[in-house]
């Protein structure tokens, strides 16, 4: 056990090293939430083109498994994170609601893409204007489809919310594009006047 003496008062702080045993104190729900946030068993409810981004997220390049959201479960009863990826039509809404009801608590819902968040540009007779009309949503990720980076942001946001025990809906905000920020954005239709 290493010892460290601070100041002249003679107080010593004992620091545990890796090979030694000891204990740490925390709140029970914090421990539980810490365990939950790294073991998200996901149920992908994939209906539309956002599925391509979901595949990119799940495959090694962006690698969702880094954040503990590794194993997709194809039964809602074994899952605790519902990914709704794509447009939900009015006809699918009862199925989605039933799947949500079958999931065991604690359960989280991830609205992937603009269509799942608010219906997108499908403002018509057949499309559900956002899955939050039917089931509560924890994280919205806008984008058509969202970049995998935005989805990772959403996943980390969800983990943060789980750790804090916060169930209010959250939105992934757009990141400032460094190219736009630098004023180097190429504008179409404007020719250079430097000739």
């Amino acid at each position, binding site marked *: 056990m290493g010892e460290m003496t601070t100041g002249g008062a003679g107080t010593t702080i004992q620091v545990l090293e890796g090979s030694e045993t000891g204990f740490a104190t925390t709140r029970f729900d914090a421990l539980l939430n810490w365990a939950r946030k790294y073991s998200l068993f996901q149920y992908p409810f994939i209906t539309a083109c956002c599925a391509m981004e979901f595949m990119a997220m799940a495959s090694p390049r962006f690698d969702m498994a880094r954040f503990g959201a590794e194993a997709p479960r194809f039964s809602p009863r074994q899952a605790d994170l519902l990914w709704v990826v794509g447009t939900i039509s*009015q006809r699918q809404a*009862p199925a989605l609601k039933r799947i949500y009801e079958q999931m065991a608590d604690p359960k989280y819902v991830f609205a992937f893409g603009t269509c799942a968040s608010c*219906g997108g540009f499908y403002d*018509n007779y*057949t499309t559900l204007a956002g899955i*939050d009309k039917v089931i509560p949503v924890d994280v919205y990720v806008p984008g058509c489809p969202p970049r995998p980076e935005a989805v990772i942001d959403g996943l980390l946001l969800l983990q943060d919310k789980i750790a804090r025990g916060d169930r209010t*809906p959250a*939105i992934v905000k757009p990141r400032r594009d460094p190219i736009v920020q630098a004023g180097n954005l190429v504008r179409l239709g404007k020719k250079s006047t430097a000739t």
Partner: protein
Amino acid sequence: MSKRVLEILKSKFGDDIYETHSQFGDDTAVVNPEKWREIARFLRDDPQCAMNMFVDLTAVDYLGRQTPRFEVVLHLRSMERNHRIRLKARIGDEDANGADIASLVPVWKGANWFERECFDMFGVNFKGHPDLRRILMYPEFVGYPLRKDYPADKIQPLVELRNVPDKLPPFGIDEGMPFGRQTHDYPRGEETN
């Protein structure tokens, strides 16, 4: 090329071919809806026409622009003779009464789902269809969504929608894209929601 098909049709059916035109290689004949199946069967069986491929069947709603309001459009192609033709038939008055036409399933089996879709979207009644029910919308749906008198913002949810009073700012009660509707001249009344 396939203007010959129009000539054959006109010589065979005479007054039942209401009008024809040919433009950019597309040949169109507007025909008598009473003779719809007869003409289709002739086009399939006649060796000069030999329309052995059913390409497409749909309808157009010309409410307020012409009466009869529906125009059923049929596209055919001959794989043997390498020509194609478009047939149209005008049916239905302004209240969509009499929107009946003979089914083409006895002529081409492929017409089955096309006619079901046309029935689902426009309410055109295909007489003699073996299984005329909705194909895209759910059975509980009331009305025909692609008719011009169907309100553009009318939805018919199957499950009761949640009412979340404290929603986040981007997703208010009127989410979707209402600005796309600003040019429409119908009222956004309560009875349409």
